């Protein structure tokens, strides 16, 4: 069975600074990988997903993520963070015939 780890529970960045949220997964074959964002009081919203092909995936809201098989990672990046990006971010891993497993989230705080 697959698993996913988000090592950082909480991250604080200054508005305008770059952001990288870490996600490591464990799965024997090529996984399906997802990043979701959850704003306070809201449900999860899909930012981007990777199934195959180009390992650099562009998502909504200016986010991107890179699949690195050698490091079993799928880190989420944004070059310049906006105050509205403050939220909780969840990485998830799935595969054909396997249920999707979610990480426990990274809470992002943005300071002026």
């Amino acid at each position, binding site marked *: 069975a697959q698993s996913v780890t988000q090592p950082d529970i909480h991250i604080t960045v200054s508005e305008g600074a770059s952001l990288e949220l870490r996600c490591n997964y464990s799965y024997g074959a090529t996984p*399906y990988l997802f990043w*979701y964002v959850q704003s306070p*009081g*809201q*449900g*999860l*919203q*899909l930012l981007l*997903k990777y*199934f195959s092909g180009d390992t650099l995936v562009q998502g909504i809201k200016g986010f991107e993520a890179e699949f690195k098989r050698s490091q079993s990672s799928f880190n989420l990046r944004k070059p310049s963070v906006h105050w509205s990006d403050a939220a*909780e971010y*969840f990485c*998830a891993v*799935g*595969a*054909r*015939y*396997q*249920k*999707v497993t*979610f990480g*426990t*989230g990274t809470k992002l705080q943005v300071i002026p």
Partner: protein
Amino acid sequence: DTAVSQTPKYLVTQMGNDKSIKCEQNLGHDTMYWYKQDSKKFLKIMFSYNNKELIINETVPNRFSPKSPDKAHLNLHINSLELGDSAVYFCASSQGGDYHTDTQYFGPGTRLTVL
């Protein structure tokens, strides 16, 4: 307009009671889901319905019974509530029936507290 809505947003109840959470989506999607997010933020799928038919049923106590009167609604009924049922329950929907690849749209969640 809210795409996936859930009611109630908060639910506080005593152990042993029976309660329901309602979910509606106005996206015209074929598939709906229920997830449970526990206090440690682990999010796990519970059920999935495609065109009113159950297609995913994870290891969930049979006190939990989903009901889909039509493809726009998927309600969750919980009998004999226990302390461990306290969690946030999310409803979601997707256009197709492929749980692994289809983009899912989530509702805002229902925070259930069992006293």
